[in-house]
């Protein structure tokens, strides 16, 4: 603990509370810009989409439980598998991680909020409305039906004339705005909104993961948004970007889609790997082994991730030379993953594991990560991939990656940070049951898919003949899927029960090392009464790790620190060394993000219905709201200060 002892006066806390607290009632609910509220909303909404996508999966598993079943029509099946993919990849996996990062970043970094709180609210509202938009045609039986990959010309108008793929194309452009807005906010937050002393070599790994993913999204999202706009123009305005008869190229879609798609896959796992890198060590009672290596490998994975997209296109007849290059690159990308795996194992090995629920999820994750990794290694081989691609082997691989590396760390992470968010502990006994149900159910469902894939079962088929010999294994997968679902239900029950009657958590129930554990649970709306000062990677363990003489200053120890109570303020620092150089004035609650999202929703609905004048009016409304948003407010200018001078 810090040497100074003192108590911050209640008066000061009341003053801060008055400035930061969201107004009560409906207005406050709609207008809040508190990153913690937004983070929890992200988590809940993304989880709701996980449940929807999960139900879709269960229905498909019933259809596939035995050969030649006729429970679903081919059309219904195609819509279900398309929406399952769209939901899980776009509406669950990234928003869920955004939820963690929104909630945790300012708390971990020692800031009072994200750099752009209103932008934060905007990205959430856009995400919700884009999610609803993508489901708007589902009740009509007209949901997107060309797969989440939406290959043309199967998704062009002659072969898919309904509104199905218009919803897809416009929906992804819509959602892309939310993602880009969120990504910009994370990047600027990292650069500016950290506690003094929180230099880049002290960042938690989840910050590295989200930062890397956000930077990647800035480059990746435009590719898919462009492709979707082109698809929509082809479909509704007779352009010929992909139309063979007009000189268009179907393979153009695949390149644009996978230039986006492969980096996106890494964006879905790197922050989750960060969750494990930060939380697993707490249960090993020691710091992560090889922090620098893991941080570098996070960035390296993303950089390499932009050079492997063609491995989704090994069977498209591209020249052997380029296939060989992308195959080799796909092998190389396994190296940074190996760094991380060995670092986690070394951390467990040299630590003293505590068998809590989060530990079980993180240790289980390591195994699933490796299984998903080696099946990726097999598909990286261009020659063998000519057999593997588009079989259930790839279905097994991608689910080991996306559930293994995203869902397991997420559930573990919720068990880990739930006490911080709610002030209550989750039930350990139920948690262990959740782990074993989901872990066994998951493997029972997805491991057999490796084998059905090696037996040649193609993907994206609504039924299969008995002669393929895969009926029994498919039945096993179906049983496993329902077992996994039971585990998720148990988890929800645990959350609900713990919210009501969980044991009180205290500030730091797990004895964690990072700044979020230095505040109360749940944290006050202003996060930190005085701005902490960071002296190491593990501020709360410094006295015990004894890495240096320097000590971080936070909590009661920071009674004489920067109070910043002349309005809604937080400290701004230099990007690399985190030297404080400005007091940032933070905006208050605002309805503008919600209004802008609503206007944008109207815009996209109008485009979907091709009501051009309505779309134009909505566009004008968007600009008007933006003008109000950006109107200069003299009192909000951040003041330059010479804090360290």
């Amino acid at each position, binding site marked *: 603990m810090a040497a100074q002892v003192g108590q911050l006066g209640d008066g000061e806390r009341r003053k801060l509370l008055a400035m930061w607290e969201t107004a009560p009632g409906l207005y406050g609910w709609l207008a809040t810009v508190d990153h913690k509220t937004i983070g929890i909303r992200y988590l809940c909404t993304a989880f709701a989409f996980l449940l929807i996508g999960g139900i879709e999966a269960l229905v498909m598993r019933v259809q596939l439980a035995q050969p030649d079943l006729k429970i679903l029509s*081919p*059309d219904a099946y195609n819509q279900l598998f398309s929406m399952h993919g769209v939901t899980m990849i776009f509406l669950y996996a990234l928003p869920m991680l955004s939820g963690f990062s929104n909630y945790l970043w300012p708390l971990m970094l020692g800031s009072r909020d994200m750099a752009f709180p209103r932008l934060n609210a905007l990205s959430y509202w856009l995400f919700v409305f884009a999610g609803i938009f993508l489901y708007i045609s589902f009740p009509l039986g007209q949901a997107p039906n060309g*797969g989440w990959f939406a*290959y043309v*010309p*199967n998704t062009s108008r002659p072969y*898919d004339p309904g509104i199905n793929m218009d919803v897809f194309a416009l929906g992804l452009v819509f959602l892309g705005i939310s993602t880009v807005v969120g990504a910009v906010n994370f990047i600027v937050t990292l650069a500016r909104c950290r506690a003094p002393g929180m230099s880049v070599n002290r960042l938690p790994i989840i910050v590295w993961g989200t930062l890397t993913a956000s930077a990647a999204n800035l480059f990746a999202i435009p590719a898919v948004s462009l492709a979707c706009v082109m698809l929509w123009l082809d479909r509704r305005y007779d352009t010929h970007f992909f139309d063979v008869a007009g000189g268009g*190229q*179907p*393979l153009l879609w695949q390149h644009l889609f996978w230039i986006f798609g492969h980096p996106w896959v890494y964006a879905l796992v790197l922050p989750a790997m960060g969750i494990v890198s930060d939380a697993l060590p707490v249960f090993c*009672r020691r*710091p992560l*082994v*090889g922090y620098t*290596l893991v941080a570098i490998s996070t960035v390296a994975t993303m950089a390499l991730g932009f050079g492997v997209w063609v491995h989704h296109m090994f*069977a498209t*007849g591209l020249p052997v030379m380029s*296939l*060989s290059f992308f*195959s080799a690159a796909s*092998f190389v990308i*396994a*190296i940074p993953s*190996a*760094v991380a795996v*060995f670092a986690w*194992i*070394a951390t*467990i*090995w*040299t630590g*003293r*594991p505590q068998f809590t629920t989060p530990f079980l999820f993180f240790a289980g994750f*390591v*195994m699933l990560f*490796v*299984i998903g990794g*080696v099946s990726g*290694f*097999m598909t990286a*081989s261009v*020659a*063998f991939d*000519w*057999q593997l*691609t*588009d*079989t259930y082997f790839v279905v097994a691989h991608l689910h080991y990656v996306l559930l293994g590396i995203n869902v397991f760390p997420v559930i573990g992470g919720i068990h880990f940070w739930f006490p911080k968010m709610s002030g209550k502990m989750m039930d350990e006994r139920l948690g262990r049951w959740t782990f074993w149900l989901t872990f066994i159910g998951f493997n029972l469902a997805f491991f057999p898919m490796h*084998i059905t894939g*090696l*037996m*040649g*079962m193609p993907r994206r*088929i609504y039924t299969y*003949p008995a002669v*393929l*010999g895969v009926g029994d294994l498919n039945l096993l997968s179906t049983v496993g899927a329902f077992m996994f679902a039971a585990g998720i239900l148990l988890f929800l029950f645990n959350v609900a029960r713990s919210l009501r009657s969980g044991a009180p958590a205290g500030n730091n129930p797990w004895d964690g090392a990072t700044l979020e554990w230095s505040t109360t649970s749940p944290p006050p709306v202003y996060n930190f009464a005085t701005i902490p000062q960071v002296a190491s990677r593990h501020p709360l363990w410094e006295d*015990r*790790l*004894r890495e240096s003489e320097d000590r971080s200053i936070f909590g009661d120890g920071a009674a004489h620190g920067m109070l910043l109570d002349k309005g809604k303020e937080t400290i701004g620092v230099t990007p690399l060394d985190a030297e404080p150089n400005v007091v940032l004035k933070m905006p208050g609650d605002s309805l503008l993000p919600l209004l802008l999202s609503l206007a944008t929703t109207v815009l996209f609905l109008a485009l979907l219905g091709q009501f051009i004048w309505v779309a134009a009016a909505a566009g004008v409304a968007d600009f008007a709201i933006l003008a109000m948003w950006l109107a200069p407010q003299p009192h909000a200018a951040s003041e330059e200060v010479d804090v360290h001078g």
Partner: protein
Amino acid sequence: MRRAFLAGALVGLTGCAGEPLGYFDTAGPIASSIANLGIGLTAISVAVCVVVALLLAAAIWRRRGAGDAGIQPVNDRQPIRWILAGVALSTVFLVASAVWTLATVQATLPPAHPGLTVDVAGQEWWWAVKYESSDPSRQFTTANQLVIPVGVPVQVNLTSKDVIHSFWIPKLGGKMDMIPSRTNVTWIEADRAGHYRGQCSEFCGLQHANMAFDVLALSPADFQTWWDRQLQPASAPADDPGLTTFMARCAVCHTVRGTDAGGILGPDLSHFGSRSTIAAGLMPNTPANLSNWIDNTQTIKPGAKMPELHMLAGEVADVTAYLEGLH
């Protein structure tokens, strides 16, 4: 020897040897060199999983001295060395696998002089097959079956008439996509006679699941006989009631060489009776299945481009008898 053992182990793992789409139990040199690579990569992968599982278990449950369970000062120089050693070892295997992959790619490159060239065009949801010959009188078209001679490299030119499909005969070689506006070239070779299953492996809409075909590998002599036979016009008397009905109800879309039926929307049905499956690999070619197919097309293959014809029972029987007689 070793490969046979490993293949046996994998086949054992994957159930039985009879899977028509399994690609470890192969029937030709291309598929076989890919299978060798696949077995190697699978073995490496399984070994990695086992090693990591053991490491993880040891890390979790290894005996630790009694002592303070609290946070203590750490010195990570040694564990970081282990991490780097593990990464170095992984890199060796990755590089070796990449080299093996590239060597396999080389081994599967098309030969300079194919013994036979076939054009296959994918369309929703069946396959048009055209046999090429330098002698135009020996060219002909068939559908949903590929007959090839054993021991001869066959070049297959792949196109699509509508959306993207993918041409895949697991026991003879890897996949190759069929993309409109492009002609992709692949090649296959069988080293033993028999039936093999082909399957569309790119999602292509409603009936992607039921877009398959039959491959029959024959000895070169049998293959020549088969080819000669295919060139013969259909042999049915002009007053066959089946032919009459066929001309009235089916000929708009289907061709039967030697008759006036010249439709090109559906599969060419010349010598239909000699084929082993119907409806693009969906069912064995038996009179009962054919009648059922003609009568209930949209129930059996919902979305298929062949409409419900609502033919009288007698008409169905006549057409069935006629088609099954086309050898």
